[in-house]
């Protein structure tokens, strides 16, 4: 085993014995960078023996997501990289968890395929660069984009994994086939667990053919409630809508797509994808069905792709790094009412995705309005996550939706089952878990 590659300890005083003093002082961070799943297991076993917590990291683009933690060391999984299996005709791809999403998407594009859940790239929003995240990170955070409403979330495409639990043991779950009910689906448990249960070393995902053609129907000038009504109508049609977003005028004005920015009005967008004649037919039908509500326009391939990337990656809020950003998931028909209940004031900005079921809300620095956000969800159900905020605020304000006592206790028991000594990302989601 190449131990040196595994450990790269920064110089912390130097001289004989620095390794010990490093841990006693707890100021410097050790970075453990395994190159094999077995080394990852050894790294966790080492942390267990040392009683040292690990920050589990893929390629580091989402370190500012979740609650800040006290982890003395980093388990850097970025050296676990590479596509290990890709069979386009079987619609399946396996990769080491630290493989960059960009590499995977490029390989898929060569075969006209895609990750249908349209993973969001939060890099730019969180102050990093675009296209730098890992497949493991996307799955660990269960990040899905606009196509979520039609194709499902990251977790719906997550077929199999191998991971190292907080017990320092390698386990696998699932497989490489799309239809599998053998045993508990631990992939679902890993998706959205933010590295608090296990460090994934390998993942297998379902991939799908990329659509031949894309069109986006735009409606201009609708107020929130009317816009969400239009989206609901489109989603209740048989036109297989794969994106349904609404940008009020202050957001649409910032788009890089001229048909959106130059409207000088709110823009409601509905995407259809598929074979050419089908897409043309459905786009025309949507314009006909909704034409009485507002003036309509149509985006073709390039502009469509650009627009939905903006929606997916929160580009409207990426530029101003100071504002606080909430991700709010609600029943889609309740979106506009929830926003009205939060009553964020004139200095707040928001837009909707998922037909109104996803609200992205940006508030001025300091005004996190947690009580209002949580209260607004009481009547209809849903959850709110503080996606971007300074570290001290994320320490103070619950980043994830607080759970009822019964569910919170169950969550803590699941954590204790996989990571009883709280080695992996302790407190990343909930204080004390």
């Amino acid at each position: 085993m190449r131990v040196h590659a595994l450990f790269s300890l920064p110089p912390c005083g130097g001289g004989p014995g620095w390794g010990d003093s490093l841990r006693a002082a707890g100021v410097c961070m050790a970075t453990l960078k395994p190159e094999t799943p077995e080394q990852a297991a050894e790294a966790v076993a080492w942390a267990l023996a040392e009683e040292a917590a690990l920050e589990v990291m893929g390629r580091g683009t989402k370190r500012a997501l979740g609650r800040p933690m006290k982890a003395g060391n980093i388990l850097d999984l970025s050296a676990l990289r590479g596509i290990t299996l890709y069979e386009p005709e079987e619609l399946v791809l396996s990769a080491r968890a630290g493989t960059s999403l960009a590499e995977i998407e490029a390989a898929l594009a060569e075969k006209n395929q895609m990750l249908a859940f349209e993973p969001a790239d939060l890099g730019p929003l969180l102050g990093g660069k675009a296209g730098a995240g890992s497949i493991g990170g996307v799955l660990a955070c269960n990040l899905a984009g606009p196509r979520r409403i039609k194709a499902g979330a990251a977790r719906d495409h997550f077929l199999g994994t191998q991971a190292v639990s907080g017990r320092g043991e390698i386990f696998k779950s699932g497989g490489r086939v799309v239809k599998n009910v053998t045993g508990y689906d631990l992939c679902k448990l890993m998706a959205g667990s933010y590295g608090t249960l296990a460090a994934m070393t390998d993942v297998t995902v379902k991939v799908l053919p990329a659509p031949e053609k894309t069109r986006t129907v735009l409606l201009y000038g609708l107020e929130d409630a009317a816009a969400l009504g239009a989206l609901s109508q489109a989603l209740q049609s048989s036109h297989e809508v794969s994106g349904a977003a609404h940008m009020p005028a202050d957001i649409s004005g910032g788009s890089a797509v001229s048909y959106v920015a130059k409207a000088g009005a709110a823009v409601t967008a509905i995407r259809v994808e598929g074979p050419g004649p089908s897409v043309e037919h459905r786009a025309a039908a949507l314009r006909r069905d909704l034409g009485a509500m507002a003036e309509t326009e149509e985006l073709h391939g390039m502009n469509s792709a650009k627009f939905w990337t903006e929606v997916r990656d929160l580009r409207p809020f990426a530029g101003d790094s100071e504002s606080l950003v909430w991700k709010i998931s609600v029943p889609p028909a309740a979106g506009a009412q929830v926003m009205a209940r939060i009553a964020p004031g004139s200095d707040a900005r928001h837009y909707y995705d998922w037909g109104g079921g996803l609200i992205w809300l940006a508030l001025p620095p300091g005004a996190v309005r947690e009580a209002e956000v949580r209260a607004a969800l009481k009547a209809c159900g849903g959850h709110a996550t503080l996606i971007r905020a300074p570290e001290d605020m994320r320490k103070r304000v619950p980043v994830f939706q607080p759970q009822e006592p019964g569910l919170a206790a169950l969550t803590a028991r699941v954590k204790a089952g996989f990571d009883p000594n709280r080695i992996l990302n302790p407190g990343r989601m909930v204080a004390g878990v």
Partner: protein
Amino acid sequence: MRMPEPDQAILARRAEIAQALSAIVPGEGVIVAEDELRAYESDGLTAYRQIPMIAVLPETTAQVSRILKFCHENGVKVVPRGAGTSLSGGALPLADGVLLGLGKFSKILDIDFANRCATVQPGVTNLGITKAVEHAGFYYAPDPSSQIACTIGGNVAENSGGVHCLKYGLTANNLLGVEAVLIDGTVIRLGGKHLDAEGYDLLGVLTGSEGLLAVVTEVTVRLLKAPETARALLLGFPSSEQGGDCVAAVIGAGIVPGGMEMMDKPAIHAAEAFAKAGYPLDVEALLIVELDGPQVEVDLLVDQVGEIAAAHGAVTSRASESEAERQAFWAGRKAAFPAIGRISPDYYCMDGTIPRHKLPLVLRRMRAMSETYGLRVANVFHAGDGNLHPLILYDANEPGELERAEDFGADILKLCVEVGGVLTGEHGVGVEKRDLMETMFSETDLKHQQRVKCAFDPEALLNPGKMFPVLHRCVELGRVHVHGGKVPFPDLPRF
């Protein structure tokens, strides 16, 4: 099949337990008479039978909570049951267990087209959901072949699929939320009408957990608008290789059909004799490809699939020109199981999934096994997603044939795992495949799964004897093995 040894102390308290349950569920909700209990002795896997100690049929979540709390406090095992259509023995009762029937939870609570979802009680049938919304052009997508009888609660427990999985997903992909009761009586809500979990995806874990984690008392599912139209192609091939290649080429061309089913020669012949569907009898593999969506798209794709099939040597190629013709194409496939039942006194339905391109190899090896075991086998195959249903033909009245059929079935499933597939695609592990779990999972893998079980049900009172070949005690599973302070890198220069 060995089940956990009945607890004599519990059996001795039967009358007292029945009385306590009667206090929770008044009237006729508690069943103790043996002739009435017999109705629950088996599920769809009829080879296994066991009369439960007591059956209880609650009507409210509060009653379920009190029943479970009582059973938890008294160490009584509980087996939840929907319609009892499980093909893996998931609802097989225990001699010392309470059978918890959810049949009275049969109300549709809320239909919400604006949010495209329906909230129903778990005893509503799968088809019952579609029936309740089809007037508005909506439907519930997963369609297991038992959909007329199976309940949505059972679908959640088994993560049921159907012929449309490739395009529309399994139960897990169409479920938005549940209300569920833990073994200690705690009522939890997971999800709702919104998307995605607010913490760990426990809804995802609960789906397909086969009644071992919690009892579901309310279900919210996603509704879809019915496609504008659907057409099917009936394609016959001289070899299963060519049929398999055609399936791969369809998907390779970027087409995801609504359904893609394959049958081998024995299945074709049995289905045709039974249903007179007009299937060609001189082919080795028959493929039904269904395309759904807007008319213009369906017509286009029907032509494309027809061309692909021709290029892969299809000797029969027919596209449905009417709804009646489409239904006729399906008639044989849908009747495949009863058709096999007609040519054999008994049959045993298996449910492995394989990487699709391994199909010819698996069929070849299966034919060899068929000769070794002296039992015939017919295959129906959800070709799009690789889910294989070999039907082993046997006669239970012939001494030893059932055992031979089971051994044959186990060998088929081991073969599925060997070629990179899994033990079960949609029927579940239950008691049937419990003892095969170790062919697919290591002890460490299974222990990690059981730690989920321990978080939900530490005393293993919910549906024990299913899914896990060995149920470790949670105390033992909880221990952490730290390498006694030793650093695991003895060769690392530490100073």
